[in-house]
Protein backbone atom coordinates (compact mmCIF):
# COMPACT_ATOMS: atom_id res chain seq x y z
CA UNK A 1 0.00 0.00 0.00
CA UNK A 2 1.24 3.45 -0.90
CA UNK A 3 1.63 5.87 1.99
CA UNK A 4 0.09 9.33 1.95
CA UNK A 5 2.81 11.62 0.53
CA UNK A 6 3.56 13.51 3.76
CA UNK A 7 3.65 10.21 5.68
CA UNK A 8 6.04 8.74 3.08
CA UNK A 9 8.42 11.65 3.69
CA UNK A 10 8.19 11.17 7.45
CA UNK A 11 8.65 7.39 7.23
CA UNK A 12 11.66 7.83 4.92
CA UNK A 13 13.29 10.30 7.23
CA UNK A 14 13.02 8.45 10.55
CA UNK A 15 15.96 6.03 10.91
CA UNK A 16 15.31 2.37 11.86
CA UNK A 17 15.42 1.72 15.60
CA UNK A 18 14.11 5.15 16.56
CA UNK A 19 11.45 5.55 19.21
CA UNK A 20 8.48 7.43 17.79
CA UNK A 21 5.16 8.72 19.06
CA UNK A 22 2.66 9.47 16.29
CA UNK A 23 0.15 11.89 17.76
CA UNK A 24 -3.14 11.63 15.91
CA UNK A 25 -2.10 8.35 14.29
CA UNK A 26 -5.49 7.63 12.68
CA UNK A 27 -5.77 4.01 11.59
CA UNK A 28 -2.04 3.43 12.02
CA UNK A 29 -0.79 3.88 8.44
CA UNK A 30 2.46 5.59 9.44
CA UNK A 31 2.91 3.42 12.55
CA UNK A 32 2.75 0.25 10.46
CA UNK A 33 5.37 1.60 8.04
CA UNK A 34 7.62 2.62 10.95
CA UNK A 35 7.20 -0.72 12.69
CA UNK A 36 8.08 -2.51 9.46
CA UNK A 37 11.38 -0.63 9.32
CA UNK A 38 12.19 -1.58 12.91
CA UNK A 39 11.16 1.48 14.86
CA UNK A 40 9.63 1.42 18.34
CA UNK A 41 6.51 3.21 17.15
CA UNK A 42 3.58 4.13 19.42
CA UNK A 43 0.46 6.10 18.69
CA UNK A 44 -2.04 8.43 20.28
CA UNK A 45 -5.46 8.80 18.73
CA UNK A 46 -8.70 10.49 19.78
CA UNK A 47 -11.16 8.24 17.93
CA UNK A 48 -11.73 4.91 19.75
CA UNK A 49 -12.75 3.23 16.49
CA UNK A 50 -9.34 4.05 15.01
CA UNK A 51 -7.61 2.89 18.21
CA UNK A 52 -9.39 -0.46 17.92
CA UNK A 53 -8.29 -0.74 14.27
CA UNK A 54 -4.68 -0.08 15.32
CA UNK A 55 -4.81 -2.68 18.11
CA UNK A 56 -6.20 -5.14 15.56
CA UNK A 57 -3.12 -4.44 13.43
CA UNK A 58 -0.91 -5.25 16.40
CA UNK A 59 0.07 -1.62 17.04
CA UNK A 60 0.40 0.07 20.44
CA UNK A 61 -1.95 3.02 20.53
CA UNK A 62 -3.40 5.01 23.40
CA UNK A 63 -6.74 6.74 23.11
CA UNK A 64 -5.91 10.27 24.06
CA UNK A 65 -6.07 13.93 23.19
CA UNK A 66 -3.06 15.82 21.80
CA UNK A 67 -4.22 18.89 23.72
CA UNK A 68 -4.03 17.26 27.14
CA UNK A 69 -2.44 13.83 27.18
CA UNK A 70 1.12 14.58 26.05
CA UNK A 71 1.63 15.89 29.59
CA UNK A 72 1.94 12.30 30.81
CA UNK A 73 5.06 11.57 28.75
CA UNK A 74 8.45 12.15 30.37
CA UNK A 75 10.86 14.77 28.93
CA UNK A 76 12.83 13.63 25.88
CA UNK A 77 11.47 10.10 26.21
CA UNK A 78 11.22 9.73 22.41
CA UNK A 79 13.49 10.27 19.45
CA UNK A 80 10.64 11.68 17.37
CA UNK A 81 7.23 13.08 18.19
CA UNK A 82 5.14 13.21 15.02
CA UNK A 83 2.06 15.30 14.43
CA UNK A 84 0.74 14.79 10.92
CA UNK A 85 -2.32 16.68 9.65
CA UNK A 86 -3.40 17.26 13.25
CA UNK A 87 -1.92 20.62 14.36
CA UNK A 88 -4.80 22.57 12.82
CA UNK A 89 -7.35 20.46 14.74
CA UNK A 90 -5.97 21.14 18.22
CA UNK A 91 -7.37 23.70 20.66
CA UNK A 92 -3.95 25.17 21.43
CA UNK A 93 -1.53 24.37 18.60
CA UNK A 94 1.19 26.50 20.23
CA UNK A 95 1.11 24.46 23.45
CA UNK A 96 0.91 21.16 21.56
CA UNK A 97 4.02 22.16 19.62
CA UNK A 98 5.83 22.95 22.88
CA UNK A 99 4.80 19.55 24.26
CA UNK A 100 6.00 17.71 21.14
CA UNK A 101 9.42 19.32 21.53
CA UNK A 102 9.46 18.49 25.24
CA UNK A 103 8.68 14.77 24.91
CA UNK A 104 10.59 14.24 21.67
CA UNK A 105 14.20 15.10 20.91
CA UNK A 106 12.85 16.08 17.53
CA UNK A 107 9.38 16.85 16.27
CA UNK A 108 7.93 16.33 12.81
CA UNK A 109 4.87 18.39 12.00
CA UNK A 110 2.84 18.34 8.80
CA UNK A 111 -0.15 20.51 7.95
CA UNK A 112 -2.18 21.75 4.99
CA UNK A 113 -1.18 25.23 3.85
CA UNK A 114 -4.07 27.67 3.99
CA UNK A 115 -2.20 30.12 1.76
CA UNK A 116 -2.00 27.78 -1.23
CA UNK A 117 -3.11 29.65 -4.34
CA UNK A 118 -6.27 27.56 -4.76
CA UNK A 119 -7.37 28.49 -1.26
CA UNK A 120 -6.57 32.15 -1.91
CA UNK A 121 -8.44 32.03 -5.20
CA UNK A 122 -11.46 30.43 -3.63
CA UNK A 123 -11.65 33.17 -1.03
CA UNK A 124 -10.81 35.97 -3.46
CA UNK A 125 -13.24 35.04 -6.25
CA UNK A 126 -15.86 32.93 -4.53
CA UNK A 127 -15.78 34.71 -1.20
CA UNK A 128 -16.41 31.30 0.33
CA UNK A 129 -14.38 29.16 2.72
CA UNK A 130 -12.43 26.83 0.45
CA UNK A 131 -13.31 23.18 0.00
CA UNK A 132 -10.26 21.61 -1.67
CA UNK A 133 -8.61 18.21 -1.99
CA UNK A 134 -6.70 18.67 1.27
CA UNK A 135 -9.48 20.63 2.98
CA UNK A 136 -12.48 18.62 1.83
CA UNK A 137 -14.97 19.50 4.56
CA UNK A 138 -17.34 22.48 4.74
CA UNK A 139 -16.67 25.19 7.31
CA UNK A 140 -19.36 24.07 9.77
CA UNK A 141 -18.20 20.50 10.14
CA UNK A 142 -14.47 20.72 9.60
CA UNK A 143 -12.28 19.47 12.46
CA UNK A 144 -9.75 22.09 11.34
CA UNK A 145 -10.32 24.87 13.85
CA UNK A 146 -6.93 26.58 13.57
CA UNK A 147 -6.06 27.04 9.91
CA UNK A 148 -2.53 28.23 9.30
CA UNK A 149 -0.19 29.05 6.49
CA UNK A 150 3.44 28.15 5.96
CA UNK A 151 4.33 31.79 6.62
CA UNK A 152 2.35 31.75 9.87
CA UNK A 153 4.14 28.62 10.98
CA UNK A 154 7.59 29.96 10.13
CA UNK A 155 6.87 33.17 12.00
CA UNK A 156 5.68 31.22 15.02
CA UNK A 157 8.80 29.03 15.03
CA UNK A 158 11.03 32.11 14.88
CA UNK A 159 9.10 33.73 17.72
CA UNK A 160 9.44 30.63 19.93
CA UNK A 161 13.08 29.94 19.05
CA UNK A 162 12.27 26.59 17.43
CA UNK A 163 14.84 25.42 14.92
CA UNK A 164 13.85 24.11 11.48
CA UNK A 165 16.22 21.25 10.67
CA UNK A 166 14.55 20.42 7.41
CA UNK A 167 11.34 21.21 5.57
CA UNK A 168 9.50 19.62 2.66
CA UNK A 169 6.77 21.21 0.59
CA UNK A 170 4.27 19.19 -1.36
CA UNK A 171 2.07 19.80 -4.35
CA UNK A 172 -0.01 16.66 -4.70
CA UNK A 173 2.49 13.87 -4.17
CA UNK A 174 5.39 15.83 -5.67
CA UNK A 175 7.92 17.93 -3.82
CA UNK A 176 8.00 21.59 -4.67
CA UNK A 177 10.72 24.15 -3.95
CA UNK A 178 10.91 26.19 -0.76
CA UNK A 179 10.79 29.31 -2.90
CA UNK A 180 7.25 30.67 -2.92
CA UNK A 181 6.15 27.59 -0.97
CA UNK A 182 3.55 29.64 0.87
CA UNK A 183 1.88 30.23 -2.49
CA UNK A 184 2.60 27.00 -4.32
CA UNK A 185 2.61 24.22 -1.68
CA UNK A 186 -0.58 22.49 -0.62
CA UNK A 187 1.15 20.81 2.24
CA UNK A 188 4.23 21.27 4.41
CA UNK A 189 6.34 18.91 6.53
CA UNK A 190 8.76 20.38 9.08
CA UNK A 191 11.47 18.62 11.05
CA UNK A 192 11.97 20.67 14.22
CA UNK A 193 14.21 20.78 17.27
CA UNK A 194 14.77 23.13 20.14
Amino acid at each position, binding site marked *: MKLRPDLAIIADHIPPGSSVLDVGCGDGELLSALRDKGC*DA*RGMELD*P*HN*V*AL*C*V*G*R*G*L*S*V*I*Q*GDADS*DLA*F*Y*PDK*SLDYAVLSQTLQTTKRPDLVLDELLRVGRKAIVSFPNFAHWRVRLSLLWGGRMPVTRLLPVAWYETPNIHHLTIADFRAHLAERGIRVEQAWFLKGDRLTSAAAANFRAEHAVFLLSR
Partner: protein
Amino acid sequence: MASAPLLAESRVLTLADPLPLDGGQRLAGVRLAYETYGTLKADRSNAILICHALTGDQHVASPHPITGKPGWWVRMVGPGKPIDTNRFFVICANVLGSCMGSTGPASEGPDGKPWAMRFPVITIRDMVRAQVALLDALGIERVHAVVGGSMGGMQVLSFAANFPDRCAAALVLAATARHSAQNIAFHEVGRQAIMADPQWRGGDYYGAGGKGPEKGLAVARMAAHITYISEAGLTEKFGRNLQDRAAKTFGFDADFQVESYLRYQGLSFTDRFDANSYLYITRAMDYFDLAEEHGGRLADAFAASRARFCLVSFDTDWLYPTVESRTIAHALNAAGCPVSFMELSAPFGHDSFLLEVPALDRVVAGFLR
Protein backbone atom coordinates in the same frame (compact mmCIF):
# COMPACT_ATOMS: atom_id res chain seq x y z
CA MET B 1 -15.77 -27.99 14.62
CA ALA B 2 -17.40 -24.74 15.67
CA SER B 3 -20.64 -26.52 16.54
CA ALA B 4 -19.00 -29.26 18.60
CA PRO B 5 -19.41 -28.89 22.36
CA LEU B 6 -16.40 -27.32 23.99
CA LEU B 7 -14.28 -29.89 25.75
CA ALA B 8 -13.31 -28.70 29.18
CA GLU B 9 -10.95 -30.47 31.52
CA SER B 10 -11.79 -29.97 35.19
CA ARG B 11 -8.98 -30.63 37.58
CA VAL B 12 -7.85 -29.84 41.09
CA LEU B 13 -4.19 -29.25 41.86
CA THR B 14 -2.80 -29.49 45.38
CA LEU B 15 0.29 -27.30 45.67
CA ALA B 16 3.35 -29.23 46.81
CA ASP B 17 4.86 -26.27 48.63
CA PRO B 18 3.25 -23.89 51.13
CA LEU B 19 2.10 -20.65 49.49
CA PRO B 20 3.76 -17.55 50.96
CA LEU B 21 1.20 -14.80 51.65
CA ASP B 22 1.55 -11.02 51.84
CA GLY B 23 0.20 -11.24 55.40
CA GLY B 24 3.36 -13.13 56.37
CA GLN B 25 1.89 -16.61 56.73
CA ARG B 26 2.60 -19.67 54.63
CA LEU B 27 -0.49 -21.58 53.59
CA ALA B 28 0.10 -25.33 53.29
CA GLY B 29 -1.89 -27.76 51.17
CA VAL B 30 -3.48 -25.13 48.92
CA ARG B 31 -5.91 -26.64 46.44
CA LEU B 32 -6.66 -24.94 43.12
CA ALA B 33 -9.63 -25.98 41.02
CA TYR B 34 -9.13 -25.13 37.35
CA GLU B 35 -10.47 -25.75 33.87
CA THR B 36 -8.56 -25.93 30.63
CA TYR B 37 -9.76 -25.66 27.06
CA GLY B 38 -7.90 -26.44 23.86
CA THR B 39 -4.55 -28.14 23.46
CA LEU B 40 -1.17 -27.09 24.81
CA LYS B 41 1.43 -27.06 22.03
CA ALA B 42 4.52 -29.19 22.51
CA ASP B 43 6.63 -26.06 23.03
CA ARG B 44 4.04 -24.80 25.57
CA SER B 45 3.88 -21.41 23.86
CA ASN B 46 0.12 -21.04 23.35
CA ALA B 47 -1.26 -20.79 26.88
CA ILE B 48 -3.65 -18.02 27.86
CA LEU B 49 -4.41 -17.57 31.55
CA ILE B 50 -7.82 -16.05 32.26
CA CYS B 51 -8.35 -14.51 35.70
CA HIS B 52 -11.93 -14.29 36.91
CA ALA B 53 -13.71 -11.49 38.78
CA LEU B 54 -14.91 -11.30 42.41
CA THR B 55 -17.77 -13.78 42.19
CA GLY B 56 -16.58 -15.57 39.05
CA ASP B 57 -15.11 -19.04 38.86
CA GLN B 58 -13.11 -21.40 36.68
CA HIS B 59 -16.13 -22.25 34.50
CA VAL B 60 -15.24 -19.66 31.91
CA ALA B 61 -16.71 -21.56 28.96
CA SER B 62 -18.34 -24.63 30.48
CA PRO B 63 -21.64 -24.90 32.37
CA HIS B 64 -21.69 -23.92 36.03
CA PRO B 65 -22.06 -27.11 38.09
CA ILE B 66 -24.57 -25.57 40.53
CA THR B 67 -26.67 -23.23 38.39
CA GLY B 68 -26.32 -25.14 35.13
CA LYS B 69 -25.89 -21.79 33.34
CA PRO B 70 -23.38 -21.51 30.47
CA GLY B 71 -19.86 -20.42 31.37
CA TRP B 72 -19.50 -16.73 32.25
CA TRP B 73 -17.46 -15.87 29.14
CA VAL B 74 -18.76 -18.27 26.48
CA ARG B 75 -19.22 -15.35 24.14
CA MET B 76 -15.47 -14.64 24.27
CA VAL B 77 -13.86 -18.07 24.75
CA GLY B 78 -14.30 -21.03 22.42
CA PRO B 79 -13.49 -22.38 18.96
CA GLY B 80 -13.37 -19.47 16.51
CA LYS B 81 -14.17 -16.97 19.30
CA PRO B 82 -11.91 -13.97 20.09
CA ILE B 83 -10.01 -16.15 22.58
CA ASP B 84 -9.84 -19.03 20.16
CA THR B 85 -9.54 -22.45 21.79
CA ASN B 86 -8.58 -23.94 18.42
CA ARG B 87 -5.34 -21.96 18.70
CA PHE B 88 -4.85 -21.34 22.39
CA PHE B 89 -4.66 -23.49 25.49
CA VAL B 90 -6.93 -21.58 27.87
CA ILE B 91 -6.53 -21.97 31.62
CA CYS B 92 -8.87 -20.56 34.25
CA ALA B 93 -8.50 -21.30 37.96
CA ASN B 94 -10.83 -20.54 40.82
CA VAL B 95 -9.00 -17.88 42.85
CA LEU B 96 -7.48 -18.50 46.24
CA GLY B 97 -10.09 -17.62 48.87
CA SER B 98 -13.06 -18.50 46.69
CA CYS B 99 -15.52 -21.36 47.09
CA MET B 100 -15.67 -23.35 43.87
CA GLY B 101 -13.08 -25.95 44.76
CA SER B 102 -10.04 -23.83 45.54
CA THR B 103 -8.85 -23.31 49.10
CA GLY B 104 -10.83 -20.66 50.93
CA PRO B 105 -12.51 -20.00 54.28
CA ALA B 106 -14.99 -22.84 53.70
CA SER B 107 -12.15 -25.34 53.22
CA GLU B 108 -10.86 -27.61 55.93
CA GLY B 109 -8.22 -26.02 58.11
CA PRO B 110 -5.30 -27.88 59.69
CA ASP B 111 -7.53 -29.13 62.51
CA GLY B 112 -10.04 -30.68 60.15
CA LYS B 113 -12.67 -28.01 60.80
CA PRO B 114 -13.53 -25.27 58.27
CA TRP B 115 -11.13 -22.36 58.36
CA ALA B 116 -13.98 -19.81 58.60
CA MET B 117 -12.57 -16.52 59.94
CA ARG B 118 -9.32 -18.20 60.93
CA PHE B 119 -8.42 -18.20 57.22
CA PRO B 120 -5.60 -15.71 56.67
CA VAL B 121 -6.46 -12.41 55.00
CA ILE B 122 -5.22 -12.68 51.41
CA THR B 123 -4.33 -10.17 48.71
CA ILE B 124 -4.60 -9.96 44.94
CA ARG B 125 -0.87 -10.74 44.79
CA ASP B 126 -1.48 -13.90 46.83
CA MET B 127 -4.10 -14.98 44.28
CA VAL B 128 -1.55 -14.34 41.53
CA ARG B 129 1.11 -16.36 43.36
CA ALA B 130 -1.35 -19.25 43.34
CA GLN B 131 -1.96 -18.78 39.59
CA VAL B 132 1.79 -18.84 38.97
CA ALA B 133 2.15 -21.98 41.10
CA LEU B 134 -0.48 -23.57 38.83
CA LEU B 135 1.51 -22.56 35.73
CA ASP B 136 4.61 -24.07 37.34
CA ALA B 137 2.74 -27.33 37.90
CA LEU B 138 1.60 -27.32 34.28
CA GLY B 139 5.17 -26.72 33.13
CA ILE B 140 4.32 -23.40 31.48
CA GLU B 141 7.21 -20.99 31.76
CA ARG B 142 5.58 -18.08 29.98
CA VAL B 143 1.99 -17.57 28.90
CA HIS B 144 1.08 -16.04 25.54
CA ALA B 145 -1.24 -13.73 27.45
CA VAL B 146 -2.87 -13.19 30.79
CA VAL B 147 -6.40 -11.83 30.50
CA GLY B 148 -8.99 -10.56 32.95
CA GLY B 149 -11.77 -8.09 33.66
CA SER B 150 -12.56 -6.28 36.91
CA MET B 151 -10.79 -8.16 39.74
CA GLY B 152 -9.43 -10.39 36.99
CA GLY B 153 -7.83 -7.28 35.50
CA MET B 154 -6.28 -6.45 38.86
CA GLN B 155 -4.72 -9.91 38.88
CA VAL B 156 -3.43 -9.34 35.34
CA LEU B 157 -1.76 -6.10 36.45
CA SER B 158 -0.30 -7.76 39.54
CA PHE B 159 0.86 -10.72 37.44
CA ALA B 160 2.61 -8.49 34.90
CA ALA B 161 4.20 -6.38 37.64
CA ASN B 162 5.34 -9.19 39.94
CA PHE B 163 6.12 -11.91 37.41
CA PRO B 164 7.33 -9.87 34.43
CA ASP B 165 9.03 -12.83 32.72
CA ARG B 166 5.98 -15.05 32.86
CA CYS B 167 3.70 -13.32 30.32
CA ALA B 168 4.20 -11.97 26.79
CA ALA B 169 1.01 -9.94 26.80
CA ALA B 170 -1.45 -8.57 29.33
CA LEU B 171 -5.07 -7.71 28.57
CA VAL B 172 -6.82 -5.69 31.27
CA LEU B 173 -10.55 -4.96 30.98
CA ALA B 174 -12.61 -2.59 33.14
CA ALA B 175 -10.08 -2.62 35.96
CA THR B 176 -8.12 -0.34 38.26
CA ALA B 177 -4.65 -0.25 39.77
CA ARG B 178 -6.08 0.50 43.21
CA HIS B 179 -9.38 0.53 45.01
CA SER B 180 -10.77 4.01 45.58
CA ALA B 181 -12.51 5.18 48.75
CA GLN B 182 -15.83 4.71 46.95
CA ASN B 183 -14.92 1.16 45.91
CA ILE B 184 -13.96 0.32 49.50
CA ALA B 185 -17.13 1.98 50.78
CA PHE B 186 -19.43 -0.19 48.67
CA HIS B 187 -17.57 -3.33 49.71
CA GLU B 188 -17.85 -2.34 53.37
CA VAL B 189 -21.64 -2.06 53.01
CA GLY B 190 -21.67 -5.62 51.71
CA ARG B 191 -19.43 -6.97 54.44
CA GLN B 192 -21.42 -5.26 57.18
CA ALA B 193 -24.65 -6.69 55.73
CA ILE B 194 -23.17 -10.20 55.98
CA MET B 195 -21.76 -9.71 59.46
CA ALA B 196 -25.01 -8.14 60.71
CA ASP B 197 -26.94 -11.27 59.74
CA PRO B 198 -27.43 -13.34 62.96
CA GLN B 199 -26.85 -16.47 60.88
CA TRP B 200 -23.27 -15.38 60.24
CA ARG B 201 -22.24 -16.35 63.81
CA GLY B 202 -18.80 -14.85 63.60
CA GLY B 203 -18.22 -16.86 60.44
CA ASP B 204 -18.87 -20.27 62.07
CA TYR B 205 -22.01 -21.17 60.17
CA TYR B 206 -20.68 -24.20 58.31
CA GLY B 207 -22.60 -27.38 59.09
CA ALA B 208 -25.27 -25.40 60.96
CA GLY B 209 -28.11 -26.86 58.94
CA GLY B 210 -26.69 -25.40 55.76
CA LYS B 211 -28.13 -21.98 56.56
CA GLY B 212 -25.45 -19.35 56.44
CA PRO B 213 -26.02 -15.59 56.43
CA GLU B 214 -28.09 -15.79 53.28
CA LYS B 215 -30.01 -12.58 53.89
CA GLY B 216 -26.83 -10.63 54.56
CA LEU B 217 -25.05 -12.10 51.54
CA ALA B 218 -28.08 -11.31 49.35
CA VAL B 219 -28.07 -7.67 50.48
CA ALA B 220 -24.31 -7.50 49.83
CA ARG B 221 -24.90 -8.80 46.32
CA MET B 222 -27.77 -6.37 45.73
CA ALA B 223 -25.62 -3.36 46.69
CA ALA B 224 -22.71 -4.61 44.59
CA HIS B 225 -24.91 -5.43 41.62
CA ILE B 226 -26.04 -1.80 41.40
CA THR B 227 -22.41 -0.79 40.94
CA TYR B 228 -22.00 -3.23 38.03
CA ILE B 229 -24.69 -1.65 35.87
CA SER B 230 -25.32 1.87 34.65
CA GLU B 231 -28.08 4.23 35.65
CA ALA B 232 -29.14 4.47 32.02
CA GLY B 233 -29.20 0.67 31.79
CA LEU B 234 -31.41 0.37 34.88
CA THR B 235 -33.73 3.09 33.62
CA GLU B 236 -34.02 1.48 30.22
CA LYS B 237 -34.64 -1.98 31.63
CA PHE B 238 -37.04 -1.11 34.46
CA GLY B 239 -37.79 2.59 34.66
CA ARG B 240 -40.42 3.02 37.35
CA ASN B 241 -42.37 0.02 36.09
CA LEU B 242 -44.36 -1.91 38.69
CA GLN B 243 -43.93 -5.64 39.27
CA ASP B 244 -47.01 -7.68 38.28
CA ARG B 245 -49.43 -5.11 39.64
CA ALA B 246 -51.40 -2.15 38.41
CA ALA B 247 -50.81 0.21 41.32
CA LYS B 248 -48.53 0.79 44.28
CA THR B 249 -49.53 -1.30 47.30
CA PHE B 250 -48.63 1.23 49.99
CA GLY B 251 -46.47 -1.44 51.58
CA PHE B 252 -42.91 -2.74 51.46
CA ASP B 253 -43.35 -5.60 49.07
CA ALA B 254 -41.34 -5.38 45.87
CA ASP B 255 -43.67 -2.95 44.11
CA PHE B 256 -41.11 -1.92 41.53
CA GLN B 257 -39.60 -4.23 38.93
CA VAL B 258 -36.12 -3.03 39.87
CA GLU B 259 -36.69 -4.17 43.47
CA SER B 260 -37.87 -7.58 42.35
CA TYR B 261 -34.89 -7.89 40.01
CA LEU B 262 -32.39 -6.99 42.73
CA ARG B 263 -34.00 -9.37 45.25
CA TYR B 264 -33.74 -12.17 42.70
CA GLN B 265 -30.08 -11.29 41.98
CA GLY B 266 -29.34 -11.36 45.72
CA LEU B 267 -31.16 -14.58 46.47
CA SER B 268 -29.85 -16.58 43.54
CA PHE B 269 -26.33 -15.51 44.44
CA THR B 270 -26.57 -17.21 47.84
CA ASP B 271 -27.11 -20.58 46.11
CA ARG B 272 -23.65 -20.47 44.61
CA PHE B 273 -21.43 -18.36 46.83
CA ASP B 274 -19.97 -18.59 50.31
CA ALA B 275 -20.43 -15.50 52.50
CA ASN B 276 -17.00 -15.76 54.14
CA SER B 277 -15.37 -16.02 50.69
CA TYR B 278 -17.17 -12.80 49.84
CA LEU B 279 -15.64 -11.13 52.91
CA TYR B 280 -12.13 -12.33 52.12
CA ILE B 281 -12.14 -11.57 48.41
CA THR B 282 -13.63 -8.08 48.80
CA ARG B 283 -10.94 -7.42 51.43
CA ALA B 284 -8.24 -8.49 48.98
CA MET B 285 -9.63 -6.07 46.39
CA ASP B 286 -9.77 -3.22 48.92
CA TYR B 287 -6.15 -3.83 49.89
CA PHE B 288 -5.07 -3.68 46.25
CA ASP B 289 -2.86 -0.69 45.44
CA LEU B 290 -0.25 -1.64 42.87
CA ALA B 291 1.68 1.62 43.19
CA GLU B 292 1.90 1.29 46.98
CA GLU B 293 3.45 -2.17 46.53
CA HIS B 294 6.16 -0.56 44.37
CA GLY B 295 7.31 2.47 46.32
CA GLY B 296 4.32 4.67 45.52
CA ARG B 297 4.97 5.17 41.81
CA LEU B 298 2.80 3.11 39.48
CA ALA B 299 5.29 3.28 36.60
CA ASP B 300 7.88 1.57 38.82
CA ALA B 301 5.57 -1.46 39.14
CA PHE B 302 6.19 -2.17 35.47
CA ALA B 303 9.90 -1.33 35.33
CA ALA B 304 10.93 -4.94 34.65
CA SER B 305 8.05 -5.77 32.33
CA ARG B 306 8.56 -6.54 28.68
CA ALA B 307 4.98 -7.57 27.98
CA ARG B 308 2.61 -5.89 25.54
CA PHE B 309 -0.35 -4.35 27.34
CA CYS B 310 -3.87 -3.56 26.26
CA LEU B 311 -6.31 -1.73 28.52
CA VAL B 312 -9.98 -1.28 27.80
CA SER B 313 -12.48 0.78 29.76
CA PHE B 314 -16.18 1.42 29.16
CA ASP B 315 -17.80 4.82 29.07
CA THR B 316 -20.70 3.81 31.35
CA ASP B 317 -18.54 2.05 33.98
CA TRP B 318 -18.68 4.17 37.13
CA LEU B 319 -17.16 1.48 39.37
CA TYR B 320 -13.76 1.57 37.66
CA PRO B 321 -14.16 4.58 35.37
CA THR B 322 -12.01 5.32 32.33
CA VAL B 323 -9.66 7.58 34.26
CA GLU B 324 -8.37 4.52 36.15
CA SER B 325 -7.39 2.73 32.95
CA ARG B 326 -5.92 5.90 31.50
CA THR B 327 -3.76 6.34 34.61
CA ILE B 328 -2.42 2.81 34.15
CA ALA B 329 -1.80 3.45 30.44
CA HIS B 330 0.23 6.56 31.18
CA ALA B 331 2.22 4.73 33.87
CA LEU B 332 3.00 1.94 31.41
CA ASN B 333 4.06 4.51 28.83
CA ALA B 334 6.32 6.19 31.35
CA ALA B 335 7.80 2.76 32.08
CA GLY B 336 8.45 2.30 28.35
CA CYS B 337 6.07 -0.65 27.95
CA PRO B 338 4.18 -1.08 24.68
CA VAL B 339 0.62 -0.23 25.63
CA SER B 340 -2.70 0.30 23.94
CA PHE B 341 -5.64 1.85 25.70
CA MET B 342 -9.16 2.65 24.62
CA GLU B 343 -12.50 3.59 26.08
CA LEU B 344 -15.27 1.69 24.35
CA SER B 345 -18.85 2.82 24.28
CA ALA B 346 -21.32 0.31 25.74
CA PRO B 347 -24.55 0.77 27.68
CA PHE B 348 -24.04 -1.92 30.33
CA GLY B 349 -21.80 -0.19 32.87
CA HIS B 350 -19.01 -2.16 34.55
CA ASP B 351 -20.45 -5.48 33.36
CA SER B 352 -19.87 -4.44 29.72
CA PHE B 353 -16.76 -6.61 29.55
CA LEU B 354 -18.99 -9.69 30.00
CA LEU B 355 -21.68 -8.65 27.55
CA GLU B 356 -22.37 -8.06 23.86
CA VAL B 357 -19.84 -5.40 22.80
CA PRO B 358 -18.66 -6.25 19.26
CA ALA B 359 -15.86 -3.67 19.39
CA LEU B 360 -14.42 -5.49 22.41
CA ASP B 361 -14.42 -8.79 20.51
CA ARG B 362 -12.39 -7.20 17.71
CA VAL B 363 -9.92 -5.65 20.14
CA VAL B 364 -9.42 -8.89 22.09
CA ALA B 365 -8.98 -10.97 18.93
CA GLY B 366 -6.66 -8.38 17.38
CA PHE B 367 -4.52 -7.99 20.48
CA LEU B 368 -4.11 -11.72 21.10
CA ARG B 369 -3.38 -12.80 17.54
